[in-house]
């Protein structure tokens, strides 16, 4: 289907089903039950899953295929958000021109930054991208926000004010980002018994875009271009002496992943029309690196899983507080209850980073291929009981080193 082989078609269909039915899948617990706080099926969080999924897919096209580890991709995301908000301020709340411009501006930015950074490889490349991202952050945070020339609105963040021109805005249209009149905020709520499911217009726009860009990523992975990118990662020396110029290949990969980041930034602004400089900070760039590695760098579905995993922890674990803990352990005698709460306390609420860090450590040590490798191992265990293991020497292959080392 669509020029994909059977395996890839299945993968695409799985992603399509998961995204389209996410409002059900992520809300498995009845609204009033004690477990309801583990429900992730509210529009705001679901949008974030998808947007960071897109960001991570794009990042993986650079990092997973070529092995170039960029620590500055958040800059493209931020640039995308600012571009989108400027469209909202000057022209219209329609999200199509806003998202288009974010992709274009991010492409231009990544072309410039990539052109300079890709003159070096390995750690020097990472440091260069980090430097560029921090410069962008500083520009957005203070330099480009002064009374004479206010491009970013500094600390407050760029947002739409009532006295903004919005030349193509009409009164009949919603006063929030919309798709030809359909407000991104509009949500249809379905109540089924004790359960409640939210279907949000913004979420479904993101979901459709995710499916398109996931399909494009599969095409890139399976194309001669994708093969050349994997060859860049494997042996640049051999490429150069085989008559191939590695520079345009890496630059193209960098620009494509920058465009994915810009798209994610544009969508973020389309869901919530403001853009702040903190989106460009290096921690945001680091987060996408974690997503790719946690899920499985160089795999198709891995980055999406990684993004979902991290965003789930960020939003769900951080909301558990001591009161919740006390209610969980209330069946224990008082002294032990307090003790248990004391033990678990550092790992929840503001301490969710600690839990994530531990999980990240476990994954990197025991599953160098990320969550995808975990899934493959489980699948192999299940199959292994039915079939005898293949004896064609597949197991003699040296294990690929984890991508982090590159």
């Amino acid at each position, binding site marked *: 289907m669509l020029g994909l082989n059977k395996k890839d078609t299945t993968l695409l269909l799985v992603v399509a089903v998961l995204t389209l039915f996410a409002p059900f899948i992520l809300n498995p617990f009845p609204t009033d039950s004690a477990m309801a706080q583990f429900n992730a099926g509210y529009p705001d969080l679901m949008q974030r899953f998808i947007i960071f999924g897109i960001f991570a897919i794009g990042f993986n096209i650079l990092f997973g295929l070529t092995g170039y580890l960029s620590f500055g991709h958040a800059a493209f995301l931020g640039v995308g958000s600012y571009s989108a908000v400027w469209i909202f301020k000057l022209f219209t709340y329609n999200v199509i021109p806003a998202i288009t411009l974010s992709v274009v501006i991010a492409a231009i930015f990544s072309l410039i930054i990539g052109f300079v950074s890709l003159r070096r490889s390995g750690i020097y490349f990472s440091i260069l991208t980090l430097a560029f991202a921090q410069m962008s952050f500083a520009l957005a945070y203070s330099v480009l926000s002064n009374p004479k020339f206010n491009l970013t609105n500094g600390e407050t963040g760029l947002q739409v004010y009532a006295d903004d021109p919005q030349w193509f805005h009409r009164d009949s249209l919603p006063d929030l980002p919309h798709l030809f009149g359909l407000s991104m905020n509009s949500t249809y709520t379905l109540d089924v018994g004790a359960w409640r499911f939210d279907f949000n217009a913004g979420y479904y726009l993101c979901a459709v875009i995710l499916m398109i860009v996931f399909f*494009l990523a599969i095409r*890139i992975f399976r194309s*001669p271009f994708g093969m050349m990118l994997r060859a860049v990662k494997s042996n640049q020396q051999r*490429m*150069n002496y*085989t008559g191939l110029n590695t520079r345009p290949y890496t630059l193209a990969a960098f620009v494509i992943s920058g465009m994915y980041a810009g798209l994610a930034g544009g969508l973020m602004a389309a869901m919530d029309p403001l853009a702040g400089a903190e989106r460009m900070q290096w921690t945001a760039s680091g987060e996408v690196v974690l997503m790719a590695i946690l899920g499985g760098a160089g795999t198709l579905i891995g980055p999406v899983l990684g993004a979902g995993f991290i965003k789930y922890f960020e939003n769900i674990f951080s909301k558990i507080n001591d009161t919740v803990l006390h209610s969980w352990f209330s069946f224990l005698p008082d002294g032990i209850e307090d003790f248990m709460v004391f033990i678990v306390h550092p790992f929840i609420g503001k301490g969710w980073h600690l839990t994530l860090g531990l999980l990240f450590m476990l994954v990197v040590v025991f599953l160098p291929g990320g969550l995808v490798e975990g899934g493959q191992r489980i699948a192999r265990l299940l199959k292994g009981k039915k079939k005898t293991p293949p004896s064609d020497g597949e197991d003699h292959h040296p294990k690929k080193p984890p991508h982090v080392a590159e």
Partner: protein
Amino acid sequence: MGILEVKNVNKNFGGLKALSDVNLSVRENSVHAIIGPNGAGKSTLLNCLVGKLIPDTGSVMFDGQSVLGRKPYEINQMGISRVFQTPEIFGDLTVLENMMIPIFARRDGAFRMHAYESVARERGILEQAEHVLEDMKMADKRHMHAASMSRGDKRRLEIGMCLSQEPRLLLLDEPTAGMARADTNNTIDLLKQIKEERDITIAIIEHDMHVVFSLADRITVLAQGTPLVEDDPQNIKGNPKVREAYLGESA
């Protein structure tokens, strides 16, 4: 007039004269061996031919065109393929993919943005790659991870990758270094076969005299950055200057 003409090439690294006044002429469709003791400048000379190093003075002409100042990938596209001392292959890719890449490079040039096409649909390239693999007697290994093969097989693959581009000049840098005897003999047989079956010029840098005398039509002996003699193999064996360079004066 040879296909490769090296004239008065000098290369210094700081105070060290790596190459001084090197002249070399490689005849078309011959096997030309460059031998010499350690530190004679063999590898420096080779690196000057493929664009990794630029000589301080002198000229390097391939088929009437200068290679100086060109990048390695541009020199490759002129028709020079290089085999490295330790096999340089794409270890993370399969053997078949390894073989497809040089064929893509020959068809599409140094860069082409073919990000939406599918590799599986590139019938022509796949067929050519399979064909070369059969020539190299590696067809059964096509889905193996290239990094997991033996050194001899990696060498065979690397030579196959170079040949798939149908180069006019094949440069080999100690192709049997660090190989077991059996692998060495296999490599010699392979190179002999290539020499007989194809219109190709081969320049080979080698330590192993067994390899040199089984293959070479012409031999240049380098010592301390200068060519000592250039002659046919039978004359090199008895040449006192060569013995001196290799074994020291007392011999």
